[in-house]
């Protein structure tokens, strides 16, 4: 199943006589695309490079690892809202899109994103995007709800879950109170809305692992979730359906970046180019993937695929509010509100 792209890569590798086989070190969430066996193997065979992974558990840890380990990583997954900060700290290297064969497929709204182009140069290749909203246990609903208010529905008291994350909770609260997620004016309204939500909860979830186990055990009727994860859970046989409600949903964009301290930038770019390749994406989507930032990759999907059918629907896309960077002060304020709400439970 060697693709034209990989063949051209290997041809290039052969042509550059004595091309060095590098070890590329990737820093990412575990199980998030870059470490899929067949994809890594195909890349390694085509280029002769080897790929080694290290994982992080939170975006803050990703930044900490980059700061304290210069030279240790060649490709890093950076959520777009952290891109300006990482770029400003000098952690990321500018990327020339001309070197990426598959870059042309990425639409301007992603490629030209101000968050990825801090200082006028591209510092992260748009890779995947997705939606944070909620998913329902289809066995608990006759008709799939279309409103966020279902989280507050007394009929589901004690059967609801949200992720234990201050920013996500505040932004869900903003959507429910009809506010801009990136500019929450009425914090008190959000706080009150969340306060009313807490008695509804069965528990908080922290990871896809908790979510799947609790959902499988029948603990939840409805819970906030990520679109890509919902696709994966459904692919694994859980009775879940992801909903983008009429109030809207939170959109996020993940980019692949090259650290300024990387010593294998050439090979890193080759790897990123493979990661945005439509062929790679189609294979990944079959296993449950977030939406691809590459329009050509999304178009290559089967029409019934969630990432094309739902997220590709312009009407749905119009309801998605993309996250903007959040400064440290706001983040801390959100955390304080969220902690205070949880502390009195």
């Amino acid at each position: 199943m060697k693709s034209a792209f990989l063949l051209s890569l290997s041809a290039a590798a052969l042509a550059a006589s004595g091309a060095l086989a590098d070890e590329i070190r990737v820093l990412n969430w575990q199980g998030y695309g870059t470490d899929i066996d067949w994809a890594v193997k195909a890349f390694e065979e085509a280029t002769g490079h080897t790929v080694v992974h290290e994982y992080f558990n939170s975006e803050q840890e990703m930044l900490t690892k980059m700061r304290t380990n210069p030279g240790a990583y060649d490709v890093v997954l950076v959520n777009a809202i952290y891109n300006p900060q990482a770029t400003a700290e000098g952690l990321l290297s500018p990327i020339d899109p001309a070197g990426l064969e598959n870059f042309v497929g990425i639409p301007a709204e992603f490629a030209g994103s101000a968050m990825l182009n801090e200082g006028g140069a591209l510092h992260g290749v748009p890779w995947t995007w997705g939606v944070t909203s909620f998913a329902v246990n289809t066995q608990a609903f006759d008709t799939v709800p279309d409103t966020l208010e279902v989280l507050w529905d007394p009929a589901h008291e004690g059967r609801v879950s949200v992720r234990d994350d201050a920013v996500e909770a505040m932004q869900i609260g903003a959507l429910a109170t009809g506010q801009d997620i990136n500019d929450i004016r009425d914090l008190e309204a959000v706080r009150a809305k969340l306060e009313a939500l807490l008695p509804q909860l069965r528990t908080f979830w922290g990871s896809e692992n908790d979510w799947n186990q609790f959902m499988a055990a029948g603990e939840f009727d409805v819970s906030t979730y990520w679109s890509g994860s919902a696709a994966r859970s459904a692919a694994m046989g859980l009775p879940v359906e992801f909903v983008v409600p009429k109030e809207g949903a939170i959109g996020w964009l993940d980019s692949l970046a090259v650290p300024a301290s990387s010593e294998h930038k050439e090979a890193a770019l080759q790897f990123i180019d493979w990661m945005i390749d439509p062929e790679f994406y189609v294979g990944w989507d079959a296993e449950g993937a977030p939406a691809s930032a590459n329009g050509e990759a999304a178009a290559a999907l089967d029409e019934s695929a969630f990432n094309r059918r739902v997220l590709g629907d312009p009407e749905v896309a119009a309801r998605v509010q993309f996250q903007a960077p959040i400064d440290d002060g706001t983040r801390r304020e959100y955390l304080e509100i969220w902690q205070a709400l949880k502390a009195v439970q």
Partner: protein
Amino acid sequence: MADLETPAERRRLFTLLSPAYLWLTVAVFLPLSAMLFFSFLTDMPQDAPDWGVTLGNYAEFLTNPTYATLLRKSLTLAFTVTGFCILIGYPCALVLAKSIKGRSREALFLMVILPFWSNSLVRIFSWAIVLRGNGVLERAVNWLLPFDVRLNLMFTTDAVVIGLVHSYLPYVILTSYLALQAVDDDLIDAARSMGASKLTILRRILLPLSLPGLLAGAVLVFVPVVGSFMEPRILGGRMGTYYGTVIEDQFVAVYNWPLGAALSFILLAVVIAILAAASPVLKRAQT
């Protein structure tokens, strides 16, 4: 106790003591001193050129009631867990030390600790499978009893206590065992021949002589439980927010090491103060 009058004794003390403490200094004390320093800063020096020294992070603890509420909650949890560990573990150690002999004692001694050679996260999720609605425990109870029982333990404070008692029980059992096993059986026989009842023997001989071991175990339970966050989060549901959670958040959710460090050192100070306050009382009880 040997004194340190001769240089040879002093040298011996140094040889025995310095490797461990040098190791601790390099790997723990110096890094934690750096953290202590950070806790007095307004910002981390590497990303804010205008950082300054402040007591603000400690003041934050006093001004924001969330932290004190959660610290109280964590201390209550730690006392509860320690209490259960002692009540459950000490009798167990007593049986192991005084009623079981020979090879089977060695085997049981190991069996107490072996479950902990597995991963704590895997153990916590296993507890979730046991405790959850229609989980292993409910099924077992309903199989035993003729009527329908709903325990609903999962996502409660009880679940957190069960998980933590399980994780820390071996410390109390083994340290108590170590002290109890050291009590001379002749002493017990002598007391019995003089007509002492079992309760008197326990109260007047075994308990006082094994108190240091029991206390060591209690400390090894109490101290880490105050700062725990993993078990509460998974087993406690929406009740599972504790002081350890807010410390973790300062490092994981927001980039606020100074506040996270300050909260940790407040935790440490409170724990040491409690141990210090308890030590004279316990000393008196021992004599």
